[in-house]
């Protein structure tokens, strides 16, 4: 294969590798800027960074269609970006601006985007799981071939909600793709100190759910596994569970001094960096040059700069609007009642 044309085209020829790389780089560079902005007190609250885990978001969400749904946690910048929520809308949210994807009310932990079927942004550990089961139930009852992907951490698997949800989804054969991001820590608690059985895929499988462990530092492996599982879910195979073995380089949040793990451990994982790994593979396959990479970095930096600029300039929600969105503003905002028993295309709200 000769390297001609736009890198994106070349990337598609390489099985979407270029897009995966772009997706991961966007997440990483976006969050690196978030750290700076946080230190400059431009963004506040809790900020949970995803750096090191980018392959999971980039790979998994590429396996979904626009009709599918995504439910996420408080560490969701990566999921939101990979789902196509514009960097501008996310940045404005972190700035608490009216133009933010949650109107400035949610902040980093509560990103939402109805148009992209991105259902949060949940800051109660395990809180998104039942919601995902319900979304899948609705699809099932309406006869829609859609998948609901629910992302959560290893810590969430100790909560009752996990067991209740996996059981229910398996019992009713609901189209849920459970994606556990096993980054080996729940805040400062290591996997082996929170779980009696640390083989998480094995545990999920005890509910009769098809389960696999995946190398979460290898974006191609993630994408392949997610694609296989999502298709099985879509065609009626019932819920599937993927344990993504990954790692977060940064502390749990900006408040966490990270005293519970050794530096050497972090350095060891960095050797398997998902971005470096993919770049190396693409280089070896002749799919990327230094110049390509440089221009990609430039393009991404420009995108993030623009997002920051627009967040800086964006208006604040007027204080008079403080109590908006507690209840629906227009009668019938919940949509017209559907025809019972009729399967068909979903009505977009």
């Amino acid at each position, binding site marked *: 294969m000769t390297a001609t044309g736009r890198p994106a085209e070349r990337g598609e020829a390489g099985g979407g590798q270029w897009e995966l790389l772009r997706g991961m780089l966007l997440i990483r560079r976006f969050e*690196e800027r978030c750290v700076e902005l946080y230190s400059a007190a431009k963004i*506040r609250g809790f900020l949970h960074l995803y750096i090191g885990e980018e392959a999971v978001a980039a790979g998994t969400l590429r396996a979904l269609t626009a009709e599918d749904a995504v439910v996420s946690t408080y560490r969701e910048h990566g999921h939101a970006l990979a789902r196509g929520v514009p960097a501008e809308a996310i940045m404005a949210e972190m700035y*608490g601006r009216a133009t933010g994807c949650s109107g400035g009310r949610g902040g980093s932990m509560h990103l939402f985007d109805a148009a992209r079927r991105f259902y949060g942004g949940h800051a109660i550990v395990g809180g998104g799981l039942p919601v995902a089961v319900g979304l899948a139930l609705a699809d099932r009852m309406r006869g829609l071939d859609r998948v609901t992907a629910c992302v959560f951490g290893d*810590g969430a698997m100790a*909560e*009752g909600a996990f067991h209740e949800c996996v059981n229910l989804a398996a019992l009713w054969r609901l189209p849920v793709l459970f994606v556990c991001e096993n980054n080996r820590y729940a805040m*400062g608690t290591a996997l082996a100190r929170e779980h009696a059985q640390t083989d998480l895929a094995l545990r999920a499988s005890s509910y009769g759910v098809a389960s696999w462990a995946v190398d979460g530092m290898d974006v191609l492996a993630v994408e392949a596994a997610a694609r296989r599982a999502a298709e099985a879910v879509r065609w009626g195979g019932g819920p599937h569970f993927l344990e993504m073995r990954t790692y977060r380089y940064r502390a749990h949040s*900006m408040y966490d001094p990270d005293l519970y793990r050794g530096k050497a451990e972090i350095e060891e994982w960095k050797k398997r960096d998902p971005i470096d790994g993919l770049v190396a593979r693409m280089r070896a396959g002749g799919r990327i040059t230094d110049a390509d990479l440089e221009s990609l970095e430039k393009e991404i930096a420009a995108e993030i700069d623009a997002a920051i600029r627009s967040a800086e300039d964006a208006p604040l929600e007027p204080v008079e609007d403080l109590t908006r969105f507690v209840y629906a503003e227009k009668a019938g905002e919940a949509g017209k009642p559907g025809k019972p028993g009729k399967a068909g295309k979903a009505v977009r709200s």
Partner: protein
Amino acid sequence: MSEPARTAAKRARRTRAGTSGTSGSPGNPGNPAGKAADGRSGKAPGTITYREAMREAIAEAIERDERVFLMGEDVGRYGGCFAVSLGLLERFGPERIRDTPLSEAAFVGAGIGAALAGMRPIVEIMTVNFSLLALDQIVNNAATLRHMSGGQFGVPLVIRMTTGAGRQLAAQHSHSLEGWYAHVPGLRILAPATVEDARGMLWTALEDPDPVLLFEHGSLYNASGEPPAAAGPVDIDRAAVRRPGRDVTLITYGGTLPGTLAAAGRLAEDGIEAEVVDLRTLRPLDDETIMASVRRTHRVVIVDEAWRSGGLAAEVSARVTEQAFYDLDAPVERVCGAEVPTPYAAHLERAALPGPDDIAAGARRAVRNDA
């Protein structure tokens, strides 16, 4: 890592490392890593912080009674999400300082079981929002077992948790739900608002034969004060008059006490002498102290960060009307949090919370409103 990021992380580490005896831990969202460089946060010599007082109280309880142990998420290795228990694992070991998985229902329920069997557990729940995952255990078990068993089984359990807003953590980390728990017979609800109460209430709570819930407002951890001369037990049956006055009674508790005292200071500049009553115990309420103050001032403002509708302020107001109606010279005022899930954006969050201006305005309304 970018340069500012690196410095922030370094600062965070430095501050945290020096936290065991000082305040300003980045574990406390009231004092973010980026700003935590001054680990002393303006603490005067000879004073201790609310966080330290609470830590000393836990350590003392563990030393004093071999049945006492602390359990909760990240209380050990991590040092507690608000750094309250920092250093205690090293001091007392993993039997007495127990890290639990993310399983609120399980470890709170286990606390109930251990208490039934004669232990004296202190269970820490990171925030009141997460306590809702254990609501079933608290309300259906802890609060009811003595009654349902005809007095055979008591649950001498202490549950500590953080409450309140003010740190831009948005709706799922910011609510004040202690009033809900104050609704439930069988529970005793405490809200230490001062360093002295943070130091003293825990031991009294542990001596109580019934479940006691202790609510620590997140914005108080860095507050500092004189270490109490006698670190002994405090009276948890009584509200406290924190500032005497003759013109209006401001009733509050927990995280809104500092703002209420600030408002009283401003009112004094205008010649209005406000009396400030700190409820301290939300259940059972100390009617006597409340009514005595109302009979002195004849005007009442109740300040509560929680929502107004159906909240604790409504209960206090109803009691004042029931017991001191003819002593009132003006309608009871309530200054509460806006009826909205707490928003993230700073200006919206500020607008949703009762601040000194709102409190002073409420007091002025009450004083001007001559019946």
